[in-house]
C-alpha cells in the first residue's frame, strides 16, 4: 500500500499551544445585510445564508435594517436572563465539581441564542431544544429550583430520577423533553409543526441543533419534511465552532456556511451573529413571521463560540488553545448587550454589578431550597419503585411483577447500596 494519501482531513485553525486564529470566519459589518420581505423567494435571498446579520456595531450601537427597535426595558430583561443563565451555569458546574451532581453542561458564551430567541417567540410556541438552551427555561420563567432538582434527581425532580442532569422538560411551559441522542428533536419539531398546520393553529415550533449534530440523519429529515410540507417551524443550527473535540470543519463547515444548507433544500437560510442579542432577536422575529404567515420554515445558523468545556466530562485544553475564547471576534453576548444599554444610557456598571449580586443571591437561595428536597447522597430520596412507572401508561403485569421483586428484595436486604461514588465520562 502506498504511504501517500490524498485524503483531505480538515484541520482546525489552532491547536493547544498555537495562536488562536479565526481568520476563517467571514463577518459582515453590522447593519450591512438587507432585510427582505418575509415572502421573498429563496433564490432571491441567498445572500442571507452567506453573509452575517449583525445589528450591534463596534461602538455598541444598534444599526441597520435588522434593528428590532426593542424597548430598553426589554433589553434589560434580556440582559437579566442571559446573566442569570450564566450564573446558574457557573454555579451548577461548581456543584458538579464538588461531586454533588453527576454531570453538567454550560451554555456560556451562547446565552444570546436561547434568550433572544425565547423572547422573540410566543409562550405558546413549542420549543424542541438540545441540551445547551437552558436559557429558554429562564426566559419562560421557570423556577431555577425545578432545574436544580432535576440535576439532583431528588424528590422534586420533574424526571423522577430517570434522566441525567440537564435533560429538562416543561409541559406547561411548552418545552419538550431532551434526549441524550443528538439531533432527534429536529424532525420531531417539524412533525409538531405539521400537526399545528393540520389543525390550523397559529403556534409554531422551534428547534435547536449543534453544528456537530447536524451531520446526523435527523437534520436531513427535518429539512426535507419542513421543505416538503412548508411546516411552520424555525430550525436553529447553533454553530459554536466545536462538537466535542472536533471543530466545525468535521461537520462539513469548511467549504460552506451551515446556513447554506437551507437554500439547498429550498428553505431560506440566515446566518446570524449569535452573540448579538439584537440580531438573533430580529432574525427570529422574521422567521416567526414567516411561519405564522404560512410562508414556510427557516433555517438559522447562529455563529457563536462554546466558551466552556463541552460538558463536565470534557477538558478542552487537550484540543484547543486556552486563549480562543478571548480571541473570538464576536465577543461575549452579555458584555455586548450590557455595553449597548450603557451607550443607550439605560444601564451602568454599577447597576450591572448590583444585578449580578442579586442574581447570585437568588441562585444561592434556589440551590438551598433545591437541596432541601434531597441530593444524590442525602436528604429525602425518591422511591426507587417509581422507576417502573411511565414505561407504558398502564404498568404491564411483567413490570408489576418486577416491581414486587425489587420491593421484596429491598425489604429483605438490610441495606441496599443507593448511589455510586464514581462518575465517568458522558458525551
Amino acid at each position, binding site marked *: 500500500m502506498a504511504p501517500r494519501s490524498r485524503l483531505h482531513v480538515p484541520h482546525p485553525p489552532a491547536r493547544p499551544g498555537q495562536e488562536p486564529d479565526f481568520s476563517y470566519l467571514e463577518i459582515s459589518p453590522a447593519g450591512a445585510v438587507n432585510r427582505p420581505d418575509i415572502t421573498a423567494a429563496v433564490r432571491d435571498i441567498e445572500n442571507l445564508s452567506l453573509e452575517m446579520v449583525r445589528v450591534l456595531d463596534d461602538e455598541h450601537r444598534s444599526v441597520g435594517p435588522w434593528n428590532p427597535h426593542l424597548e430598553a426595558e426589554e433589553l434589560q430583561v434580556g440582559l437579566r436572563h442571559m446573566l442569570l443563565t450564566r450564573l446558574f451555569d457557573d454555579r451548577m458546574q461548581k456543584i458538579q465539581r464538588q461531586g454533588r451532581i453527576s454531570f453538567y453542561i454550560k451554555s456560556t458564551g451562547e446565552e444570546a441564542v436561547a434568550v433572544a430567541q425565547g423572547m422573540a417567540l410566543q409562550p405558546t410556541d413549542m420549543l424542541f431544544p438540545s441540551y445547551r438552551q437552558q436559557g429558554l427555561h429562564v426566559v419562560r420563567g421557570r423556577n431555577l429550583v425545578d432545574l436544580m432538582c432535576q440535576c439532583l434527581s431528588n424528590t422534586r425532580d420533574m424526571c423522577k430520577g*430517570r434522566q441525567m442532569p440537564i435533560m429538562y422538560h416543561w409541559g406547561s411551559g411548552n418545552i419538550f423533553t431532551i434526549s441524550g441522542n443528538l439531533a*432527534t428533536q429536529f424532525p420531531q419539531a*417539524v412533525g409538531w409543526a405539521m400537526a399545528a398546520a393540520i389543525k390550523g393553529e397559529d403556534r409554531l415550533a422551534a428547534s435547536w441543533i449543534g453544528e456537530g449534530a447536524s451531520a446526523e*440523519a435527523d437534520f436531513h*429529515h427535518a429539512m426535507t*419534511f419542513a421543505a416538503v410540507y412548508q411546516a411552520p417551524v424555525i430550525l436553529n443550527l447553533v454553530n459554536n465552532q466545536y462538537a466535542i473535540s472536533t471543530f466545525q470543519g468535521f461537520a462539513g463547515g469548511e467549504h460552506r456556511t451551515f446556513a447554506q444548507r437551507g437554500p439547498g433544500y429550498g428553505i431560506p437560510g440566515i446566518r446570524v451573529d449569535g452573540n448579538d442579542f439584537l440580531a438573533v432577536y430580529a432574525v427570529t422575529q422574521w422567521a416567526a413571521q414567516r411561519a405564522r404567515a404560512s410562508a414556510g420554515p427557516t433555517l438559522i445558523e447562529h455563529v457563536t463560540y462554546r466558551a466552556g468545556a463541552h460538558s463536565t466530562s470534557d477538558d478542552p485544553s487537550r484540543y484547543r488553545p486556552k486563549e480562543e475564547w478571548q480571541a473570538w471576534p464576536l465577543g461575549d453576548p452579555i458584555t455586548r448587550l450590557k455595553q449597548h444599554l450603557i451607550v443607550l444610557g439605560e444601564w451602568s456598571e454599577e447597576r450591572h454589578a448590583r444585578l449580578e449580586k442579586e442574581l447570585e443571591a437568588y441562585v444561592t437561595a434556589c440551590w438551598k431550597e433545591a437541596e432541601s428536597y434531597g441530593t444524590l447522597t442525602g436528604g429525602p430520596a425518591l422511591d426507587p419503585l417509581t422507576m417502573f412507572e*411511565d*414505561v407504558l*401508561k398502564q404498568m404491564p*403485569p411483567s413490570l408489576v411483577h418486577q416491581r414486587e421483586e425489587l420491593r421484596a428484595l429491598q425489604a429483605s436486604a438490610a441495606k441496599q447500596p443507593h448511589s455510586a461514588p464514581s462518575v465517568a465520562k458522558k458525551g
Partner: protein
Amino acid sequence: MARMNMVQALNSAMDVMLERDPRVVILGEDVGYFGGVFRVTEGLQRKYGEHRVLDTPIAEGGIVAAAIGMGVNGLKPVAEIQFADYIYPGFDQVVSELARVRYRSAGEFSAPVTIRTPCGGGIRGGQTHSQSPESVFTHVCGIKVVMPSNPYDAKGLLISAIEDEDPVVFFEPKRIYNGPFDGDPHKPAVPWSAHPRGEVPEGHYTVPIGRAEVVREGRQASVLTYGTMVHVAEAAVRLAGVDAEIIDVRTMSPLDVETLCTSVCKTGRCVVVHEATRFSGYGAELVATVQEECFWNLEAPIQRVTGWDTPYPHAFEWEYFPGPARIAAALKQVTEAA
C-alpha cells in the same frame, strides 16, 4: 358483518378511526393518493383529505420522527413503513425516542403513534422484502408489539392500537393479506371469505392488546405462535395427528404469559414457531418464559421451529420457511419424548 380480507379489514380499521376521531392521521410512503403498495390505505385520502392521509418523503426515520412530533401535538398518527425490512432507518427514532418520551418526561409528554408495517416472507421478496424483525422491538421497553393472524383480529387490534395511548408497532403478515396460508404454496390460494375470521364487523370494535388466544384446544402439546404461522401450525397439527393446543400470541409485548403458560402447564409439551431467524428470535423469549413458569410440568424440551439463521433467500423461500413438515416433526418429537 361483512366479508373482508386482511387488507380490507385493516383499511376498515383506519376508516373507522379517521371517521370517529379527528386526531387520527395516516402517513407514509405512497399511502395517500395511491393507497399504499399493498392498497391498505386505498380510498382513505379521497375520503378524508390530504391533510389527514399524507404521502411522505422516502425517509423512515423522518416518518417516525414526524409522527412523534404530531403525537406530542395531540394527534394520533398511524405511520406505515412500506416493508418491515425498511424500518431500520427509523430504528433510532423508535427505540430512543418513541419508546422513551413518556418515561424520560415522567409522563408529561407522550406520543401515541401506531407504526404499521407488512412483514414476513413467502412472496418471493428475497432478503429485503421478507423479514420478521419483531424480536428486536420486543426487547425495547416502552412500545407494544402486535401481529394479527386474521382479518377479524387485524381490524380489532389495529383499532386498539390507534386508541392506545402508548406507541404500538403493528406487524402485518403480508403472506396472509388475501387469505389464510397453510404452508403449502402449491395448493390453490384460499380466500379469507372461506374462513370464519374473514367475517368482520363494519363498524367499531376492538380486540384487546395484551391477550393471546387459544385458536385450537388440545391436550397433547402446545404450539405457541403468531401471524402467518398460526395457519401453518394448524396444518402441521393435522399432519402430525397430534392433539395440540394452538395459541395465537397476537401481542408479542406485553406478553399474555398466563394464557400461554396455562396451556403449557396443562399439556406439558411445547413447540414455539415463528418465521424469523431462530437465534435470539422472539421464540427464545417464549421458551425462556415458559420454561420458567412451567418447568415442573414440562415433559420434554421445548422445541423451536423457525426460519434458519440466514437471510431469507429468494430461490429457497420454501426450504427456508418453517413449514408444516418441520412443525409436525417437532410436535412428534415433543410428544414422543419420554
